[in-house]
């Protein structure tokens, strides 16, 4: 701009000058603040985005930073994870939900091996095993589960006591409970069909997990790939037909306005005792508590068969720790990982956020809302949600929502099979 011809008789235009300076100044200022004040400490980026736990982990990062002289931990709660891997500067330590999407990073070897960490040997084997259900990278322990969320039917203890109901142990008991509640004019189950994920992670996962060996089912489905169809030995339309049919039986005991209700309304309704049961995970407890009512809640695994021994709880890896292969400060990140894995810190987190510990020495959960699931968790009577094994490319949640709202069960499951086979063909 400055090199262009200027007529000497005219002073430089003020507007032009300001515009130029403004643009240049703004850009310079923006790029200038990229570098932080120089110090001898190595910076470790810690990625954790679970909203309710952000202040908690920011505090831990501060404590760790002040406890030694060499490392400064920076808590990142807002970046885009995929973008950072694409840019080749991922966070140095990740602490987030472990799911199929995250497994893709692990499967491709983007996460470093943690098997030599002392913390790894303290893991419960059946919990560490959960990681491998989505995908494995041979010879590595890439992901350390930090906390496990166990989910089952949330029920209002007071309503159950008022109607002399005990926690059902078999499918028939369950139907009886629903019938009795209906007869007494109480809504048995509060459903929120407007939010597709609530149907998938609630009714669908509980009913399928209670009847089908989820991990084995998807192992076989992955093997079959393009072969999945009406003739294959397992398929959505065959294996899941009975659970989903039972799911619709239960859905019939829902509040009448379920199709128009979402997650937020469900939590409010449960807080005010509007229904006896609610198919949600422990994450809902925090939201229900926001209403400030004195509702007394507990949990029980949904019985799906006639054998009480078949009851299981749904689990997911609420938080897991991993260190990317691309990180340039792996040693420092490992130090912070060991800090987080100290029993007193890990157990305190799990206690506060209603989750279960992942180590052999973790104390049992004491909160009355989830304590009833401890026994199932200890005995390994758990499964990961069936809806969580379906890649996001297939709109499974929406299909399940459609079933809940009255679409054909056979037709929709057949469509899921077709989508599964088509996706397998593409890959």
């Amino acid at each position, binding site marked *: 701009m400055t090199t262009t011809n200027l007529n000497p008789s005219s002073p430089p235009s003020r507007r032009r000058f300001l515009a130029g300076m403004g643009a240049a100044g*703004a850009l310079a200022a923006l790029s200038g603040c990229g570098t932080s004040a120089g110090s001898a400490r190595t910076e470790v980026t810690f990625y954790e985005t679970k909203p309710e736990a952000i202040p908690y982990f920011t505090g831990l990062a501060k404590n760790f930073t002040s406890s030694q002289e060499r490392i400064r931990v920076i808590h990142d*709660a*807002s970046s*885009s994870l995929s*973008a950072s891997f*694409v840019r080749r500067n991922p966070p140095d330590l990740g602490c987030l939900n472990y799911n199929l999407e995250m497994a893709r990073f692990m499967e491709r070897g983007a996460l470093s091996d943690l098997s030599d960490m002392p913390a790894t040997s303290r893991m419960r084997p059946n919990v560490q095993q959960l990681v491998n259900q989505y995908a494995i990278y041979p010879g590595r322990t890439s992901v350390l589960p930090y906390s496990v969320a166990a989910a089952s039917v949330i029920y209002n203890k007071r309503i159950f006591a008022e109607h002399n109901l005990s926690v059902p142990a078999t499918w028939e008991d369950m139907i009886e409970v629903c019938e009795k509640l209906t007869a007494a004019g109480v809504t048995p189950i509060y459903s929120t069909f407007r939010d597709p994920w609530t149907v998938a992670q609630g009714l669908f996962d509980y009913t399928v997990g209670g009847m089908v060996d989820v991990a084995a089912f998807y192992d076989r489905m992955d093997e079959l790939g393009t072969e999945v169809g009406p003739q294959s030995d397992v398929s959505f339309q065959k294996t899941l037909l009975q659970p989903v049919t039972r799911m619709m039986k239960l859905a019939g005991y829902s509040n009448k306005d379920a199709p128009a209700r979402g997650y937020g309304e469900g*939590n409010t309704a449960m807080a005010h005792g509007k229904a006896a049961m609610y198919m949600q995970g422990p994450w809902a407890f925090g939201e229900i508590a926001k209403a400030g009512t004195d509702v007394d809640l507990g949990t029980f695994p949904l019985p799906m068969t006639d054998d009480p021994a078949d009851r299981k709880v749904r689990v997911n890896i609420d938080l897991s720790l991993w260190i990317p292969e691309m990180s340039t400060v792996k040693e420092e990140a490992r130090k912070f990982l060991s800090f987080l894995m100290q029993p007193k810190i890990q157990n305190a987190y799990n206690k506060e956020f209603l989750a279960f510990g992942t180590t052999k020495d973790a104390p049992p959960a004491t909160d009355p809302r989830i304590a009833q699931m401890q026994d199932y968790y200890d005995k390994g009577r758990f499964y990961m949600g069936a809806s969580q094994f379906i890649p996001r490319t297939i709109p499974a949640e929406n299909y399940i929502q459609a079933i809940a709202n009255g679409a054909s069960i056979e037709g929709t499951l057949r469509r899921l099979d077709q989508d599964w086979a088509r996706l397998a063909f593409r890959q």
Partner: protein
Amino acid sequence: MSNTTTPATPRDQSTPKHGGKNRRDRANWPITIVLIVASLTVLVPLYVTVSMSLKTTEQAVSGNAFSLPWPINFSSFAQAWAMTDFPRAFTISVLVTVATVAGTIVLASLASYAIVRNWDRRLFRWSFFYLLATMFLPFPVVALPQIKLTGIVGLDNPAGVALLHIMFQLSFSILLYTAFLRSIPDELEESAKLDGASTWQTFWKLIFPLLAPMSATVGIFAFLISWNDFMMPSLITSDPSLQTLPVLQNIFQTQFSNSYNVAFASYLMAMAPAIIVYLFTQRWVMSGVTQGAIK
């Protein structure tokens, strides 16, 4: 509704459905009702935003969004302020937006001027079509290459975001400017040239001031796009301490949790500049829009 030369007809005398030459003297009730309903679509959400931000968490999840916040509670603002590190995030958002607005206005007006005055040359004509074609390329399509590119050249920061905002605003702004520039007669420039002005001076002393209403329109569009953008800063900026406000606000609402009162308090604070800018510039926006439409 406005004053006209026709003698004012008393309103009670005329029936609303009666059309004809006196129409402008009377309130047009059907249109007024439509306008009232239309304005409700803005006012109702605004009311919910304001009242939610003044509620306590318990009131916010009571299941009634329209209830009055009583007792009024300002702590959500303090919480939102602390959680987003508001002053820092706000400053970054402002810097990105100012750079975008200034850059878009300067670059787009210069480019449009060159294109319109050289329309008979193929290079300029085709560059115009080329720029227009980019309107059909939304950011998500090129997101991954852009992330890689900005990462390689060290622009994975707000400066890169501002640069990309300018690039993506360019095509639409040039479209607006060129339409407007064609309505400015060549004779004006010829007389300036006769007085000895160079092309550069003609542009800055004559054309750019004439473009002011259109610059206001272009500026407002650039402002809104840049201020409200979520996706680009969230993907491009790698340092979390340099993140813009809309991205940081994302922490208030996830699949599993809502903090309506804190979220709305934060939204309100983020909305304020947009409303203030619009209040002061709406005159130019409206005139700019019509001037672009009628040549």
